[in-house]
């Protein structure tokens, strides 16, 4: 089981290695946000310093990669429902969840790697965080990716249409982003928005990230974020493996 998962991951990483341009373009967006948006936040931080703004905004930039990167991971699989690859794998000796999970592990690794690059840029801009905070943040990104990528593959297998899928993803992206406090902290929002945000899993990722970066390891949002994403990750994986079975009609 593990062997098959790693085989698929290795294969997908090979494909990625041959097309390195795409994941690099993928992190341009969060990097630009760091460069061009984080300075704007200095007006709401206590001392008006960029390092304070970076502590608030860098975790958000990382969650952004998960949103705009991993949520689109499934697009490639839509083509595989048509070109016969999934059909062939379904009747091969492959352990079926590995077909999805192998790709998800690749997406998680990618996300961690991209996060490291974005953290590097933030460090150059003056962000200073502890190693423990960084390690936990990367782990948090991995579980966020587990959820986002599984959701994306599940959607791809259920919808099986590029146009439909991009509409659905776009439809969910904006509210998920605004209600996670990604751009501005939710503490600035009116009461009702704060209540709604509690139902958005990404809200916990952003909040947990900010707590970690502020060296506040006792913040309750940290275990909640890990728990929520692990549970959702397992649920969405189950869903996408089920959808794989439905390909056969």
């Amino acid at each position, binding site marked *: 089981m593990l062997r*098959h998962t790693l*085989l*698929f991951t290795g*294969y997908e990483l*090979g*494909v990625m290695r*041959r*097309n390195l341009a795409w994941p690099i373009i993928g992190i341009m967006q969060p990097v630009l946000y760091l460069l061009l948006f984080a300075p704007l936040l200095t007006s709401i931080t206590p001392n008006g310093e960029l390092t304070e703004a970076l502590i608030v905004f860098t975790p958000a930039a990382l969650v952004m990669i998960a949103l705009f990167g991993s949520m689109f991971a499934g697009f490639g699989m839509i*083509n*595989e429902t*048509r*070109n*016969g*690859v999934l*059909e*062939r*794998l*379904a*009747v*091969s*000796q*492959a352990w079926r969840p590995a077909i999805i999970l192998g790709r998800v592990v690749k997406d998680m690794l990618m996300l961690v790697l991209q996060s490291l690059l974005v953290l590097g840029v933030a460090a150059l801009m003056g962000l200073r965080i502890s190693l423990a905070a960084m390690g936990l943040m990367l782990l948090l990104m991995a579980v966020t990716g587990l959820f986002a990528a599984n959701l994306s593959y599940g959607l791809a297998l259920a919808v099986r249409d590029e146009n439909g899928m991009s509409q659905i993803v776009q439809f969910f992206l904006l509210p998920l982003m605004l209600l996670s406090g990604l751009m501005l902290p939710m503490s600035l929002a009116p009461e009702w928005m704060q209540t709604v945000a509690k139902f958005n899993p990404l809200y916990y990722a952003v909040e947990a990230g900010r707590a970690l970066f502020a060296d506040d390891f006792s913040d309750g949002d940290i275990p909640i974020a890990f728990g929520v994403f692990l549970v959702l990750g397992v649920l969405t994986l189950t869903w996408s493996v089920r959808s794989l079975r439905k390909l*056969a*009609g």
Partner: protein
Amino acid sequence: MIIEAHDLRKTFVAKRGRGKTEEVEAVRGIDLSVDEGEIFACLGPNGAGKTTTVRMLATFTVPTAGTARVAGFDVVKEAAEVRERIGYVGQAGGVDDNAPGRESLVLAGRIAGMSRKEALARAEELFAAFSLSEIADRPVKTLSGGQKRRFSLAIGLVNRPPLVFLDEPTTGLDPQNRANLWDEIRALRDRGTSVLLTTHYLDEADALCDRLVIVDHGKIVAEGTPEKLKKELAGDVVTLRLDDLEGARKVLAAQPYIKEVQTEGDSLRAYLDDGEHGLPALLRALEAENLAIRSISLDRATLDDVFLKHTGRSLRDAA
């Protein structure tokens, strides 16, 4: 028997908008038995249920009813055992366009349980057999249709299966590539591999297979060797065009040397064993009834005639 299927059925529930659904009976009771080391064909028009049948036998689609044993194992209850013993090459090919063929082949080998070294060696073996060595490291999307098809076949054979399913293996190939693929399929049989293929090409079934079934509307309408099926019908066929089709049909049906008469569109097809000798008598009989002939031809009967006999229409029209 490498394949034994009894009364296989598959009903799909298709969505028809506004919450309405419609049941589509794709396969309506198919019995099959395929011997070890034979090339067996499912011949039929598009939509006859060939692909669904193969997908059920290859453990992709679960049958609605009926049972099938492939390589000695039940396709539903022992799917994992079946999968170890089959190769499956679907209609779409199933080769990843974005990677070189070598990568796909090595991955397939390793999933089948080989070490990296074994998988690489097996890939080399297959590249040599299918003349793919020179293009093994090029991204598959840069290859021609025939080359892609050979990669699909190679991937299907990576685990040295005793049985391989080929779903419309030559559709879309040019005549040269088609002939080459036929040779490769024959070579498989010569090495002891059983082959079940589907096709809507009559000449393909005729030239390639040891035995076949003709499938139409989810059912088998005829079964046997190509020779036996054609012989059942008669060796030769006279195709006639004339104004009074019905009158001519009655006259010809009454002739003792004519085994069968079929109407196909605006022409009549009369089947007889010895066309060269029967033709003059046929002409005299029509002449005697004053039936004017607009055109006439004499040919060997083909599997299309078998299809026409069993379904009342030509495979060319059905497809």
